[in-house]
C-alpha cells in the first residue's frame, strides 16, 4: 500500500513537471492560449527539433528538391528568422510546418488577401493536396529520431538476448532473456501459430515478432515523459508502412484458394460472383487500412487525451490552476497506466490481425462456403 502511494506521488510529480516543461515550449510558438489544441496537435505531429525536458536538441533538416538537389541545415536555424520572417534564407516555418513561400521581385514573400504567405512548394506527402510543387523531407525529424532510437533499442535488446541463447545453450533463461522469452513464446504460440496455422506459421514468425516488438517499444517510448514526445506509432506514415508491408506479404504468399474466393467466388450464381468480386476486392484493402488507422488512432488518441487532461490545468488561471492541476495530474496517472495497457494491446492486435490476414491467404480449401468470409 505504501509503495503504491509512493508510486502515485512520483507519477503525479513527473506529470506535473512534464506539464511545466511543455508550458514555455507552447509559449514559444506565439499562441494566445498557454496550452490548447494547436499545441496538442503539434505534439502528436512530427517536428524538426527534439525537446528532451527543457533541452531543445537540433536535428539535421534534409530536404530534396526534384531537379535542384539537396538542402541540408540544422533545425535550430528554423527558430532564427531573418527580417522577412524566413528561415535559412527561403523557408517559412509556421506551426511546425515548413514551406517555401513565393517571393516577389524584391525578394519579399508574397502575401495573399488574408495576409498569409503564398506557398510555392510544400513537403511531399502521399496525397499531394493543392497541386503545388513539392520537396522531399528526409530530415531526421522527431519521429525519425524515435524510429532510429527504437530500431537501435530493438537490435540491442534482441541481439543481446540471442547471444545469451548461444552462450547458455540448453540452460534455463536468465536476465533479459527470461524477460523477453515469455513474450516471444506468447507471440509465437498464442498469436501467430493459431492465426496463420501450424503448417506455415514458422515462415512469418520473424516478421510478426519484429512488428510486435517494434510497435510495443515505440508505444512505450511515446509514453515516457520528457523524451521529446515521441509519437512514432501514432504517425500515419509508420502505420501505413507496417500495414502495406503486411498486405504485400499477404498478397505474395496467397494461394490459389484465396484468389479463387476473391476473384470468382465458388458455389454462387454469376451475378453474386460479380458482386462478391467487388466486395472482396474492397475487403482486400480495408483490412490493412483498418490496421493502419487503428494503430495510428489509438496511439494518437492516447497522447491527445493525456495532453488534454494536462491542458485543463492551463485553462484555469494561477491558484485555481494549481488546485485543478493536482486533480488532473491524478487523472493523467490513470490515463498513463491505461496507455501502458493500450501500448501492449495495440501491438498484440496489430500482430494478431496481421497474422489472420496471412492465415486467410494460406487457408486450404476445406471450409464451407457459408462461413468462408
Amino acid at each position, binding site marked *: 500500500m505504501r509503495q503504491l502511494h509512493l508510486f502515485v506521488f512520483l507519477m503525479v510529480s513527473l506529470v506535473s513537471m512534464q506539464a511545466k516543461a511543455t508550458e514555455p515550449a507552447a509559449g514559444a510558438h506565439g499562441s494566445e492560449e498557454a496550452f490548447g489544441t494547436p499545441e496538442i496537435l503539434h505534439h502528436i505531429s512530427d517536428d524538426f527539433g527534439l525537446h528532451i525536458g527543457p533541452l531543445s536538441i537540433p536535428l539535421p533538416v534534409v530536404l530534396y528538391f526534384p531537379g535542384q538537389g539537396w538542402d541540408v541545415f540544422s533545425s535550430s536555424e528554423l527558430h532564427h528568422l531573418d527580417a522577412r520572417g524566413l528561415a535559412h534564407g527561403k523557408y517559412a516555418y509556421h506551426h511546425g510546418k515548413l514551406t517555401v513561400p513565393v517571393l516577389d521581385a524584391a525578394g519579399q514573400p508574397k502575401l495573399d488577401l488574408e495576409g498569409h504567405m503564398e506557398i510555392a512548394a510544400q513537403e511531399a*506527402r*502521399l496525397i499531394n493536396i493543392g497541386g503545388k510543387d513539392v520537396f522531399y523531407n528526409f530530415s531526421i*525529424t522527431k519521429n525519425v529520431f524515435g*524510429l532510429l532510437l527504437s530500431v537501435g533499442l530493438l537490435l540491442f535488446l534482441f541481439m543481446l538476448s*540471442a547471444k545469451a541463447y*548461444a552462450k547458455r545453450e540448453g540452460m534455463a533463461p536468465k536476465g533479459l532473456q527470461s524477460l523477453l522469452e515469455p513474450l516471444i513464446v506468447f507471440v*509465437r504460440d498464442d498469436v501467430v501459430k493459431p492465426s496463420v496455422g501450424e503448417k506455415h506459421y514458422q515462415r512469418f514468425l520473424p516478421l510478426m515478432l*519484429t512488428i510486435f516488438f*517494434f510497435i510495443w517499444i515505440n508505444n512505450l517510448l511515446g509514453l515516457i515523459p520528457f523524451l521529446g514526445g515521441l509519437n512514432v506509432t501514432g504517425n500515419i506514415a509508420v502505420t501505413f508502412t507496417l500495414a502495406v508491408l503486411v498486405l504485400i506479404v499477404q498478397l505474395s504468399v496467397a494461394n490459389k484458394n484465396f484468389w479463387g474466393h476473391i476473384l470468382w467466388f465458388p458455389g454462387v450464381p454469376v451475378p453474386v460472383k460479380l458482386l462478391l468480386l467487388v466486395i472482396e476486392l474492397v475487403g482486400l484493402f480495408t483490412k490493412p487500412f483498418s490496421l493502419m488507422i487503428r494503430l495510428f488512432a489509438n496511439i*494518437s488518441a492516447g497522447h491527445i487525451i493525456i495532453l488534454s487532461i494536462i491542458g485543463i490545468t492551463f485553462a484555469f488561471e494561477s491558484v485555481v490552476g494549481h488546485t485543478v492541476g493536482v486533480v488532473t495530474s491524478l487523472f493523467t496517472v490513470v490515463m498513463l497506466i491505461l496507455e501502458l495497457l493500450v501500448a501492449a494491446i495495440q501491438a498484440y492486435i496489430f500482430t494478431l490481425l496481421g497474422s489472420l490476414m496471412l492465415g486467410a491467404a494460406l487457408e486450404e480449401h476445406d471450409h464451407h462456403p457459408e462461413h468462408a468470409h
Partner: protein
Amino acid sequence: MDLLNPSIGLLVWMTISFLVLLFVLRKFAWKPILNALHEREAGIEKALQSAKEAELKLAQLTADNEALLMQARKERDQLLKEAREAKDAIINEAKEQAKEQAAQLLAQARETIKNEQARVAIDLRNQVAQFSIEIAERILKEKLEHSGQHDKVVEQALNEMSLN
C-alpha cells in the same frame, strides 16, 4: 489534414529502418532465439519422454522383481513342502523300521521266552521227576523201616524240597 497524409520522407525512413530491422533481427536474433527455443522445447519433451520411459521401465522392473520374488517364494514353499514330506517320509520309514525291528525283537524274545519256558518246563519236569523219585525213594525207605510213619516222611521230604 497533414495528420492523415503520410509524409514521403518519413515513409522512406520507416521502410528502410523497418526492413533493416527485420532482416538483421531475422538473421541475428529471431533465428538463433527461435532455434534455441525449439531445441530447448524438444529437449524438455525428450527428457519428459525418457522420464516416462524410465518410469515405465522401473515399473516393469518392479513387476519383474515381484514376479521373481513370488516365484522364489513359491519355490521355497515347494522346497519346504518337499523337505517336510521327505522328513515325514524318513520319520515314517524309521518308525516303520523301528516297529518292524521291535516286532522282530519281540518275536525273538517271545521265541526265546518260549524256548526258555520249554527248557524250564523240561527242567521242572525232570526235577519233579527227580523229587518224586527221591520222595518215593524215601517213602519206600520209611515204609520199609516204620510202616506208619510214611506221611511224616513225605512231609519232611516236601519241606526239604521247598528249602531247596
